[in-house]
């Protein structure tokens, strides 16, 4: 923001008239003097009409409401419709830019896959704005590509949708979705199996370790030893061994007392 320094006009050679009869500043008085020197203006100007701010604003407002909004200053030029660039240098309808665009839209784009043949395609996202397709090349290689619906892939998009009808595309997409579900289920099941095996291995190891502890092996507490054998988790083994140790301590204390 500009920082405007307030100045005292008097210090800069201006005369300031603060009497109530005077409408405006010294500059306004000077303007009046100049107007008087121009004869055309002298006739028009009604010096009796007060030129104070409120009166002027009222006049402007009244004029804005008036119906007579003609071009009193003569600023508006009427268009010469008989003599312009279109009439002087007319363009054939066929050569017009908008016609070309319309034509391009209806004309089939060129086959973008060379000698490749589309053998399978499906939508590869939920919004169906991405297509994955497989091309068989002349040497029987199969290439797979994935494109979105951006203008740069317009030709590929057009030809895939032409070669693979919508219902086929939908069936392929559903097949791929099912495949993903099956794979996911298999992965989850395998993951569970691995986890279960690891858990069982850990559990067996914990039981072996527990029975290598003299406090367990030498214990006569059949119930707790049996509970260790029956434990379904490593934590259960640890907790039961803990209970056995605690009991052994209590028994020792009782004997010493």
């Amino acid at each position, binding site marked *: 923001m500009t920082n405007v320094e307030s100045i005292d006009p008097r210090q800069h050679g201006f005369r300031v008239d603060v009497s109530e009869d005077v409408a405006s500043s010294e500059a306004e008085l000077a303007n009046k003097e100049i107007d008087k020197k121009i004869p055309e203006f002298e006739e028009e100007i009604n010096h009796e009409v007060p030129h104070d701010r409120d009166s002027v604003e009222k006049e402007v407002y009244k004029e804005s409401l008036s119906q007579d909004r003609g071009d009193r200053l003569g600023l508006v030029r009427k268009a010469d419709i008989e003599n312009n660039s279109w009439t002087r240098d007319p363009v054939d309808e066929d050569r017009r830019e908008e016609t070309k665009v319309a034509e391009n839209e209806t004309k089939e784009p060129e086959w973008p896959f060379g000698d490749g043949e589309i053998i399978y395609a499906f939508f590869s996202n939920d919004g169906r704005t991405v297509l994955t397709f497989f091309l068989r090349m002349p040497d029987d290689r199969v290439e797979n590509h994935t494109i979105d619906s951006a203008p740069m892939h317009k030709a590929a998009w057009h030809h895939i949708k032409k070669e693979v009808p919508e219902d086929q595309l939908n069936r392929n997409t559903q097949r791929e979705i099912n495949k993903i579900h099956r794979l996911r289920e298999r992965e989850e099941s395998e993951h569970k199996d691995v986890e279960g095996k690891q858990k069982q291995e850990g559990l*067996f190891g914990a039981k*072996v370790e527990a*029975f290598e502890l003299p406090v367990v*092996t030498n214990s006569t507490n059949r119930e707790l030893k*049996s509970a260790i*054998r029956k434990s379904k988790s490593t934590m259960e083994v640890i907790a039961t061994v803990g209970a056995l140790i605690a009991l052994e301590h209590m028994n020792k204390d009782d004997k010493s007392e």
Partner: protein
Amino acid sequence: MTSQNNGFLYVGSLTKPYYDAAVMSAESVKDYWPEAKCTLFTHEPWVNQNRDSKIFDKIITNVPAHCRAKLWALEQTTYDKTCYMDADTYCEHDDIKYIFDELPDDYDMVMTINRAYNAKVVYFTNDKELTHYEEEDKKLIWEGGDPKNGKPLYAIHSWDPTANNGVYRMKWHCGMFIYNNKPHTLEMLHAWYENYKEQITSKKVWEKKFNHPKSLWFWDTYAFWRTNYYKNYNVRIKEIHPKWNFVNGYRDYELSEKHQKVMHHYTIPGGIQDEGLIDDPSISNTIGNFDVFR
């Protein structure tokens, strides 16, 4: 309770977790029946003499480094009645002290029956393993596909009238059984060992030697069936209650107030088995070698 020369036989071979499990199982038996006699067949480096000597009456080392070393050990028993117990078991009932009473004098062996609902395979044909609940397979196993009212179509022995149907049943669970030391019983057990040895080393020439699905090559249960299917050793086998060998997955309705679980049979996790493999240059697989003694 019997005070005869009867005892439990445990085998912990090839991988240490089986030794650890055998020790824990025998200890659990002794918790409920301190007078029980137990013998352990295992590898010398694993033995914790101080602890194990309190649990086992005999510890026999220098045994085959094979996951089925039990088949070698069975006929080595010094007991009159031997209860072979898989290592991955534990005792949880006082009734263990009556276990040898289950084998009467007029029988040679007692075993539990394979539960089809819990076993990997029980019924099979020359070509495939059967699934007892599949409609198509049910028709092969029972007349009219009706397990309740239909006559069995499967055979356990080659002299069964159903032997020509081409459907077979591995009836007996081989994870726990009691046997006597009569010569014909030990002869059959030896044949079981020999048959298994032949089976486990014939994977590459399976089709030339065996008429049944190759998927059975690993199972000692199949070798037991084969041993008793083709030859009658006159070994009389009696079925006993599953409470003596209650396998993980058996259903609770098998038990009752009168018949409470005595021995629980779990499975040692596979990952641990591989990790604990005995370190020996002669062993290059997870099955082991009957000819390598450690």
